[in-house]
């Protein structure tokens, strides 16, 4: 056996890394995500963002996402499907990092893009995806004291989850509890 370990291996590893991302990532059912990860220009930024996020460097992760977003906007124009994985990943990072006010913007943009898709009949995946983002958006609103918007977003999330996944699904129940809390906050406010 031999060799300075691995330079040879590295070449393949990098190729593989790209292809792996291509296979599935968050929101794997999104054709947009698959397309984005198949793009040699955006895939490295996205994978780097994931790596930074996992290592706790949120700002670096967001910087990578910003660059990826700029590339996508340049190629496809604003408000396009390809932005969804970037927006949602950015929103999640901000949300988990407690930066709720900042998380609102990417989530709102995502919802705006997803709404027309979810409006189509029989598009269960899109409806659930929209409900999932609405749940996070509603929580972000609630955390920033915007109880009115929180209730509105969470109500939609509950409706969509119930219609698609059923009353007993964990997501439905979590959304319902969040709605109850937000409603109480709104009442108190």
């Amino acid at each position, binding site marked *: 056996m031999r060799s*300075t370990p691995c330079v040879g291996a*590295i*070449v393949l590893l990098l190729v593989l890394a790209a292809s792996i991302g291509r296979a599935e990532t968050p929101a794997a059912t999104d054709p947009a995500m698959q397309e984005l990860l198949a793009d040699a220009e955006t895939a490295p930024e996205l994978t780097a963002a994931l790596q930074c996020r*996992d290592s706790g460097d949120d700002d670096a992760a967001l910087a990578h996402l*910003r660059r990826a977003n700029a590339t996508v906007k340049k190629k496809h124009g604003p408000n396009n499907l390809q932005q969804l994985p970037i927006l949602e990943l*950015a929103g999640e990072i901000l949300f988990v990092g407690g930066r709720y006010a900042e998380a609102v913007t*990417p989530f709102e943009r995502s919802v705006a893009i997803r709404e027309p898709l979810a409006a189509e009949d029989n598009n269960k995946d899109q409806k*659930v995806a929209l409900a999932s983002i609405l749940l996070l958006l509603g929580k972000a609103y609630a955390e920033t004291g915007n109880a009115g918007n929180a209730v509105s977003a969470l109500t939609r999330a509950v409706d969509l989850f119930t219609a698609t996944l059923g009353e007993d*699904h964990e997501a439905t129940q979590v959304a319902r509890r969040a709605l109850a809390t937000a409603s109480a906050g709104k009442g108190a406010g």
Partner: protein
Amino acid sequence: MLPVYFLLDGLCLPTAPVGSRTSGVRSARLCPVFALVFAAAVFLQARPAAAQFDLAVERELLGKLLQDGHYKQALAESRRVEEALVGQTAGTPAKPGKKGKVTRPPAVTVALVELLIYRGTVERRMGNLDAAEKTLTEAYKQVMDPEFQRLIRVLAPADKEQLEQYLVGLKLPLLQLLDNGTEVLIDRLRKFNYECQAQVAAGAAVEITAEQKQEIESLFQRVDMLVRTSIQERQYPLTVSPDDPAAGSPWARMMLGQARPYRLIGMRYLEASRLPWTVPFDADPASKATEDAGGSKAGGGDKARQPEAVVERVETPVEREQQAKSQRRRAVGYLEKSRDLARQSIELAKSVEHAEEKEVFLQEEARILGETGIPLTVLAMFGSDAASARKLIDQTVEALSSTEQSNHPELARPLMVSAELAMQEGSAAYAAKDFVTAEKKFQQSVTELRRAKSILEADDSEFDPDSPLHPVLADLIVKSQFQQGQSRQGASAASAADAAARRALAALARSENAKKSRTPAKPADGKPADEKPADAAKKPPAPAKPATRATAP
């Protein structure tokens, strides 16, 4: 009988670096080095080289250090032995040599050459290719020194049998030098290919200057020339005596076979297939060597080293891919031939060797198979033949694990290749919605990468801490973990929609956990900590909010 001066005169090594190394494991066997010194000392009746130290003991020590992967110590010890050897001969008066020039007994020069090869090997394995090249070039200079060549001619024994052993004793380090030089050059090519791929992975266009291209093609030419010479040198069979400690050793028998140069040709084609362009002279070096050996003197002459006439034209991506496929086919062909040759050598050797040497042969076999198994696995992965790749790499890891210390740095590479393959397998399983298998495969990848990382970063591994390998490994571990998490999530999701919902739930849970960890303990005065001016727990404002800004309408 091939006279030794012919053998050495025919050695047309490149003007710049000659690298050399025994493959990692092989070099650990360095045995012929010192055995050769003793043998040569007997034959040449040279002045004994060891007055203040025992070469046999040093040999054991050096071999053990390399075998255990203690590279820095191996370097230090080899330098110490070098100095001792040189020091012992420093006062040797010039014999019939040039006036005023110190004449070293050839046995000592051979020992020095072998030590340099050893050192070059260690440096290469530490990832320091420049140092390895420099050291091995020095070894080459020692071999090509006119006085050394004159002496080995003068001192060649007249007796036919003794001459043969004498030649074998000289040929072994020469072959080591050729093989190790080729390995260093191939490592350089691999590094270049890695850099190109890293640029692609980073989303940058690969820009190669004419100068770089020329340099790379020059490396390939040098590899081809070295391999041709190496094949030619091995085409003159020598009868090795089972009684001779150097020539009759299992290592020597393996070394004199063609398995090693064929392996190097296979690796050379693998690297050629990864280049962004096709090298214009990409002819089959083995065929050339055969032609040269039949028609001209050893080394092939200048004509054989000339690249074929090339008309410059732009290669289309389709053409490049076709060429790359062809190169990969050749790589597979040579590597498989290397394995066959190794097996044949072992079988032949087994029939004449003593029973106690059987184990040594089996270890040699495992090493050769391991060395060819890694590039063959990579090639199978290129061909999307995951099943063959898995079989090959499992055999390789098993073979090498049986011959190496459990934490030997050289085990890192097969582990990484196995991890790459597991990632590929995991991705395929994920795409087929087989989340359970996918998770297992990504788990395997994470485990193997972590083990490779721990091997390379062990305190005593001495692997170059600045090697680009370290961040790449760390990056891969993160990616594997991420994929594993995805697979786990997928495995628990009844559908894609369910998975999307669970992802949101996971984000909520992470947010809650993070919130708890951010919430400071209530201080004694009853005020929350963030109401205090010097609030250490307060998160600093985000400097850029890049994603938000980037995605804002």
